[in-house]
């Protein structure tokens, strides 16, 4: 457990998104399955998109709240979860989707951590929107998995 600022949280989330994008891009290059290539290519571009959105917002909207402090527990968006999922080049699409859902859940944990600790209206609104985006993404991944195409 550590005490960090909202700015740190956002930087951390951004770094996590960046790593995810790289991770999918890397998987897309290495895989020997067409389906996994299609899927990871899509997910990588999607993560870059989210990361860009994260980068843009704090500067304009929530500058004054960046120094607010919160407790941080390491299970939220732990960088090591990404490292732990070293998928082999012949990983199936289902394995990739399971990993992606785990990553989404760890981001959801991170945003929930912040939400549980703050009463500040502005911070709440901002993190609620991040949380909703991430929850929607998780539902999308689950639906892709349920459609059984890849």
């Amino acid at each position: 457990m550590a005490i960090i600022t909202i700015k740190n949280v956002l930087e951390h989330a951004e770094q996590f998104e960046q790593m995810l994008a790289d991770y999918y891009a890397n998987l897309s290059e290495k895989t020997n399955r067409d389906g996994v290539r299609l899927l990871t290519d899509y997910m990588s571009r999607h993560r870059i998109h989210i990361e860009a959105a994260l980068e843009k917002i704090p500067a304009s909207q929530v500058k004054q709240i960046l120094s607010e402090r919160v407790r941080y527990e390491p299970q939220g968006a732990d960088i090591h979860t990404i490292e732990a999922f070293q998928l082999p080049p012949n990983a199936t699409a289902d394995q990739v989707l399971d990993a992606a859902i785990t990553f989404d859940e760890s981001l959801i944990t991170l945003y929930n951590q912040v939400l549980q600790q703050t009463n500040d209206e502005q911070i709440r609104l901002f993190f609620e929107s991040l949380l909703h985006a991430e929850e929607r993404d998780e539902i999308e991944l689950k639906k892709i998995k349920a459609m059984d195409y890849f």
Partner: protein
Amino acid sequence: MNETSVLIIIIASIFTANILLSNFLGMCSFLACSRQLSTAIGLGIAVTFVLTGTTGLNYIIYYYLLKPIGVEFLSYIIFIAVIAAFVQFVEMFIEKFSPKLYYALGIFLPLITVNCAILGASLFMIIRKYSFIQSVGYGFGAGVGWAMAIILIAGLRKKMGYSNIPQPFQGVAITMIITGIMAMAFMGFAGMVTM
């Protein structure tokens, strides 16, 4: 005739014999509408108003109609009908003449037609043999006490929204628990006044 002074009755019904915390009446709307502070305040004021009005009205009906004819056993059903009609009437009345007040309070009125605290107060007033003034005072005090309890709990629930409650306790369960704790805290007033 009960000789307690009206002031004592009012204070006692707010603190020591709070209708919600000591009799646990009116729990349904108490649990349902205590999520937001503003809703709780509106509902609390509406309950106070209806309680004051219906105790007075029911007093008149009981002592000047039911008792002389000797049909006191009808009091339960008649009280309920009077309360329902009163709530309906008041709702229509303020909707017509003060839309502003209607939007602040009136919308809560249908919610409290069947609030058992209101019937409870009318029945207590008979059992305790209050006079007219005492009855109205008791109705008012019980309403204020109920309003205070729901406003307090709404504040607590708002605060709780940000805390990490174990899943099995979330929602009504934790509200019941803190209501119990609050009831115990209010018992601390018990020696202050008796009614």
